[in-house]
């Protein structure tokens, strides 16, 4: 099958409006004859479900948490971008488009990204109308800040909890439609598989997480809004329940998986304290505006620090290595996320890491406190310092913070065309679950924007085109494909529950995470990746022989839930490695060690790799087939990044 991204012809700025005009419409009276299944109720899912129901479609929405309000989107802190140019500082749709394409290191589509920038302005209007309490200035207008290295202030925020406020807005719109009877909400339900009939998605099979009941749901289209797969690394800033299952099952039913190896690693997270660590906590990047990153100059000093024989403050200036300032004199501590992350890991790998575990670098505010005074530092970063102290029991006003990079976001995901449809007709992917807009690296405050763009302003148009084409003929679960899929789901659950070995599911997850982090993280090479592939295969085999899964299906069984998710991660991990092996260039957040400039910086290879890698599943334990979607740049000139 050749990949057709269906990007409309014509000038960039006209593509979306033209496309909207050309899309088929569903007659208003017919809308109620259609049922749309929405899996996931984070920003993407809740906004899509509410907007489609408002249009008149019947919606069935699903989430695995006990309430849609608890989707992982709730945890986003920093903010959401929009090209409103409220600050009169030169922002525009064109500029947001350009920043996003460049930030993604030229591995995303011009057409999609331009549309994202275009609808970004409508998102803010919508959210404010819902009552989302964004930060305001004294004059009553909305406040903005600059974020993640952007040169304009285009980020809207709601204290440190933008995600919660945006999600509560979308959730309120969803609630209104639930009340109106247009959305049926299924909490504590996990989608176990997609059902396809004659190649089209026609429904899903779910497991009621409280009773274990396996159920079929039919619909005219299925929207996967199931979030990212960062938890393949075990430790990440994602919520504990984030998983790849829905996307992975769709992949096995024919949806191509695009750029799986593109993951984002965030430099300023609170480091691991021990084996018990279950997740990592992100601290805002803004800390790097005033904090200085350093490690001791020598391994010997680092060892003494780790043992507590000396205190960080007692280290003389000449014994400290402010490695970012040293290596990148013009950007210093403000180099992009990937550069900061990679360098921190290098220091730790050299044995110069700090903290009890040695897996951390310092972020020091002593100079900032001298320069600005403690009160000013408190006013700027007080809540972050409090959070740090609460978790680590250390006072960052008195001793340097310890930070370390952590997996934060996955740019890869299900391949979708301009309409957000996967390679399975009738199956769509929205939000972090798709691969579409962030290329090889996502800009800060752009994920919330994309999730809401997809749900509020893209899918309500593009879905109609497909629905009008297939017609409102009733769908139901009588078709044998539903019974067949249910049987497969039950068999897999039985297989999992039959595992009565000696190792817990969590142990496998942790081992997988270590492999991914070591060999398929921010810096990789052929040798490591080849090794990782063997390790993952062996681990997967071991899982299906020696894992222990407790309990039965017919009850609330969190261990069984986790087992299913880890089993899918064990498959995804190998595909990520394959994708990383294939992409022999450095790009976005990733350094391919074989592809560096003379100064040791990332070297992109536009000649060979200016494409989206979309992988087609064949059969279990078989290599997947690679399809390439060539990226065409007509409006931007490709340039190499440099932060020296």
């Amino acid at each position, binding site marked *: 099958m050749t990949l057709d991204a269906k990007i409309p012809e014509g000038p960039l700025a006209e593509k979306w409006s033209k496309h909207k005009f050309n899309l088929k419409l569903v007659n208003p009276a017919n809308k109620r004859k259609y049922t749309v299944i929405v899996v996931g109720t984070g920003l993407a899912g809740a906004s899509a479900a509410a907007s489609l129901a408002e249009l008149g479609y019947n919606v069935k929405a699903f989430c695995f948490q006990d309430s*849609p309000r608890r989707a992982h989107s*709730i*945890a986003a802190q920093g903010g959401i971008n929009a090209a409103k140019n409220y600050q009169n500082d030169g922002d525009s749709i064109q500029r947001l488009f350009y920043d996003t394409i460049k930030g993604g290191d030229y591995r995303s589509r011009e057409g999609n990204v331009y549309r994202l920038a275009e609808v970004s302005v409508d998102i803010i209007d919508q959210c404010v109308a819902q*009552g989302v309490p964004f930060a*305001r200035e*004294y004059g009553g207008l*909305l406040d903005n800040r600059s974020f993640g290295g952007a040169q304009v202030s285009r980020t809207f925020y709601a204290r440190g909890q933008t995600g*919660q406020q945006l999600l509560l807005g979308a959730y309120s719109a969803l609630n209104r439609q639930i009340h109106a009877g247009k959305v049926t909400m299924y909490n504590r339900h996990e989608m176990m598989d997609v059902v396809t009939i004659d190649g089209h998605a026609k429904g899903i099979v779910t497991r009621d997480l*409280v009773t274990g009941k396996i159920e079929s749901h039919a619909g005219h289209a299925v929207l996967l809004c199931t979030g990212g797969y960062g938890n393949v690394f075990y430790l990440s800033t994602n919520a*504990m329940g984030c998983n790849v299952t829905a996307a992975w099952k769709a992949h096995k039913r024919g949806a191509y998986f695009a750029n799986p190896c593109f993951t984002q690693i965030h430099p300023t997270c609170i480091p691991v304290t021990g084996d018990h660590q279950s997740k990592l906590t992100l601290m805002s990047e803004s800390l790097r505006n005033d904090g200085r990153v350093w490690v001791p100059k020598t391994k010997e000093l680092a060892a003494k620090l780790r043992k507590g024989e000396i205190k960080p403050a007692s280290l003389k200036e000449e014994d400290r290595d402010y490695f970012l300032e040293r290596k990148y004199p013009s950007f210093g501590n403000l180099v992009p996320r990937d550069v900061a992350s990679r360098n921190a890991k290098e220091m730790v790998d050299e044995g110069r890491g700090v903290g009890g575990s040695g897996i951390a670098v310092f972020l020091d505010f002593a100079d900032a406190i001298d320069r600005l005074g403690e009160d000013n530092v408190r006013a700027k970063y007080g809540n972050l310092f409090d959070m740090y102290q609460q978790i680590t029991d250390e006072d960052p006003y008195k001793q340097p913070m310890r930070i370390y990079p952590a997996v934060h976001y996955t740019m890869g995901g299900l391949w979708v065309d301009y309409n957000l449809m996967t390679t399975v007709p009738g199956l769509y992917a929205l939000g972090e679950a798709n691969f579409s807009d962030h290329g090889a690296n996502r800009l800060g405050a752009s994920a919330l924007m994309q999730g809401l763009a997809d749900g509020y302003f893209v899918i309500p148009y593009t879905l109609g085109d497909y629905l009008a084409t297939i017609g409102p003929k009733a769908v139901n679960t009588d078709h044998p494909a539903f019974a067949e899929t249910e049987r497969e789901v039950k068999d897999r659950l039985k297989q999992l529950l039959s595992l009565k070995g000696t190792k817990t599911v969590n142990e496998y997850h942790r081992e997988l995470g270590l492999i991914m982090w070591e060999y398929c993280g921010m810096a990789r090479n052929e040798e490591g990746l080849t090794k990782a592939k063997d390790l993952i295969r062996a681990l997967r085999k071991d899982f299906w022989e020696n894992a222990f899964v407790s309990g039965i299906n017919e009850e609330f069984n969190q261990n069984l839930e986790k087992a299913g998710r880890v089993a899918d991660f064990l498959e995804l991990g190998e595909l990520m490695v394959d994708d990383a092996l294939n992409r022999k260039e450095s790009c976005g957040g990733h350094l391919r060690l074989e592809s560096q400039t003379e100064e040791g910086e990332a070297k992109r290879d536009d000649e060979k790799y200016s494409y989206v890698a979309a992988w087609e599943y064949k059969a279990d334990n078989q290599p997947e087939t690679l399809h390439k979607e060539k990226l065409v740049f007509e409006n931007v000139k490709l340039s190499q990044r440099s932060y020296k």
Partner: protein
Amino acid sequence: MKLTLKVWRQKNAHTKGKFVTYPADHVSPDMSFLEMLDVVNEDLIRKGDEPIHFDHDCREGICGSCSLHINGRPHGPKHGTATCQLHMRSFKDGDNIVIEPWRALAFPVIKDLATDRSAFDRIQHAGGYVSINTGGVPDANDILIPKVIADEAFNSATCIGCGACVAACKNASAMLFVSAKVSQMALLPQGQPERYRRVQAMVEQMDKEGFGSCTNTGACEAECPKEISLSNIARMNRDYFTAKLIKEEVHH
């Protein structure tokens, strides 16, 4: 550290529960409370026992999933934090820790420490929104909101829907939660058109769900991880009585 846990175990909503005692022998002060339970659960699984079930997700104090009643207090001994933000350094070697689910008629136990809080969702279905559709709304800066009002609305909006207020209340009243939701909209200009109808609908649903009445003890405010203030309840009561008086809208 070595601790002794007394944990509420209950198979499902239809069976009776009981306390079971477990030793927790390898506890580090750096662990979070939930990580401590993870470690206990790993041991239970290895022994072929059922792990202790509890709700959790973000582990950052924002999703509102975690909901443990620890030594008689919702979310444990620390003020202004959710269970997932509690660290074991708040306890000392040899401590006994009693862990229970939220106890409230309107929050039936699903299993062990996990309860069904869907009543909160249903209260919001009844009216916790501004009735607008996607698209066709005014420019965001056309709606001016004084900073003090915006900040006050924000304070109410920080509620994470955890239910600790209900668990803390001897009457299992949901007033703090409902009033936080009502207040956010009552303060903002966007919420004005439906202000009185909203409060009526939400209070009515709250009563239907079987939450108790408020007797102003303030236990909810004291245990709320987001420090939602009792003044929300006063505001809601005012709006509720105004709604009754002016009968602005007869709905249903």
